[in-house]
């Protein structure tokens, strides 16, 4: 069988969602930790952003990898969802979960919804920050600062500016809560998708995965709320 056929098989699709899902989890975890540098001051945050930018071609390579991961993740997720609708055109009059050991939850049933909102959010987020004032193709002298004699983009100023707006601060918070829901089912699910699960491990991995999702979500939410409520 060709690789393309294998990857589009029911198991191949899970290989893709599993690998891209875990890859994206690592990405959001690192991104969240990076954001926390703002709590050490605007200069620390700008220096961190500058450090990433200084990676040059390596950064582009990582960004290209991220784009590929996102695209495969989204396309696969949508395919699985569409396939599930086609596989049962007429639903039940009455349907409920039978309970344990089922892992069916609001999280597991809403992966497509939380995922699609995350996708839309991603576009707005990139347009506001990465490609916002002072970013690539959008030079803006008022968003340039100098830290320890080095000229760099004043991303911290942009972050403060955006999160002073309630729509931005609370919209961001809401979407991050959806990320927590996505990861509550997602982290455990990815390991099961990759065949790396045993019954004895399931409750532990499910619990730790949900905690990781919660930690990532709360870590992201800390910054907009701290800025909006003038804590930093």
């Amino acid at each position, binding site marked *: 069988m060709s690789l393309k056929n294998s990857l589009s098989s029911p198991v191949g699709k*899970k290989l893709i969602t599993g690998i891209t899902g875990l890859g994206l989890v690592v990405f959001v975890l690192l991104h969240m930790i990076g954001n926390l540098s703002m709590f050490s001051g605007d200069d620390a945050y700008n220096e961190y952003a500058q450090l990433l930018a200084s990676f040059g071609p390596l950064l582009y390579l990582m960004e290209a990898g991220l784009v590929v991961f996102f695209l495969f993740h989204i396309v696969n997720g949508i395919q*699985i969802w569409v396939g599930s609708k086609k*596989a049962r055109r007429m639903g039940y009059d*009455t349907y409920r979960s039978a309970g344990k050991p089922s892992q069916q939850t609001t999280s597991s049933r809403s992966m497509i919804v939380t995922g699609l909102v995350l996708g839309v959010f991603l576009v707005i987020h990139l347009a506001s920050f990465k490609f916002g004032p002072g970013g690539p193709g959008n030079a803006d002298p008022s968003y340039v600062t100098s830290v320890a004699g080095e000229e760099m983009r004043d991303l911290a100023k942009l972050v403060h500016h955006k999160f002073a707006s309630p729509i931005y601060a609370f919209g961001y918070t809401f979407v991050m809560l959806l990320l927590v829901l996505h990861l509550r089912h997602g982290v455990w699910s990815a390991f099961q998708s990759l*065949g790396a699960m045993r019954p004895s491990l399931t409750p532990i991995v499910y619990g730790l995965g949900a905690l990781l999702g919660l930690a990532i979500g709360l870590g992201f939410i800390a910054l907009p709320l701290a800025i909006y409520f003038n804590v930093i």
Partner: protein
Amino acid sequence: MAESMNIKLKVWRQAGPKAQGRFETYTVPDANPHMSFLELLDVLNEQLIKSGKDPIEFDHDCREGICGSCGVVVDGVAHGPQRRTACCQLHMRHYKDGDTIVVEPWRAEAFPIIKDLVVDRSAFDRIIAAGGFVSVNAGSAQDANCLPIAKTAADLAMDFAACIGCGACVAACPNASASLFTAAKISHLAMLPQGAPERKSRVTAMVNQMAEEGFGDCSNHAECEAVCPKGISISTIATMRREYFKAMLG
């Protein structure tokens, strides 16, 4: 009769595969706690026949939870509320006088409705035919124990072989996926030396057939394990995936 129960049933009626179906509501005034759920349907059918109506078609055979013929969705749960129990072994003592019970067929495009509560599960036969067997050149029977198999492997293989092919896993799955059924057979044979030579072609062919039949993909809701009358674990699905990855590597 002090134990007599009045049970209301809301049942899916559909005259044929292409016909428009609908729910009908019936009352069984003389149900009792000792009846099985299928016996309740029997009593209702006698009632319908006596009043000149079409009885409700439903599948059943052994009525002791071993053949896999029966299977309907009872109040939203495949095989009904009792864990690890096929609906033929569900008893009316779990209900009380005055209850209303909703009864629907398995719903999946790969399991087309034949009539009322009876669905066509031959898609499962085609998945098995794609590779769920061990090819043997028949000769005289081998001596028992000439192929040593560890007790743990034999026990696990037996757990996985317990699948009765009822289809509850598909019915309960939000995606109408047949992963648990398919994985149970793949894992059963992968545990045993007799199954080993064909493991790669088996997993590839069975997984492809599963997709071909129009079942959905698995999203790891694990609802299948919760309704399976044999308690087949989703660890079989993890095993199926590992088997498939090994086959992909050649």
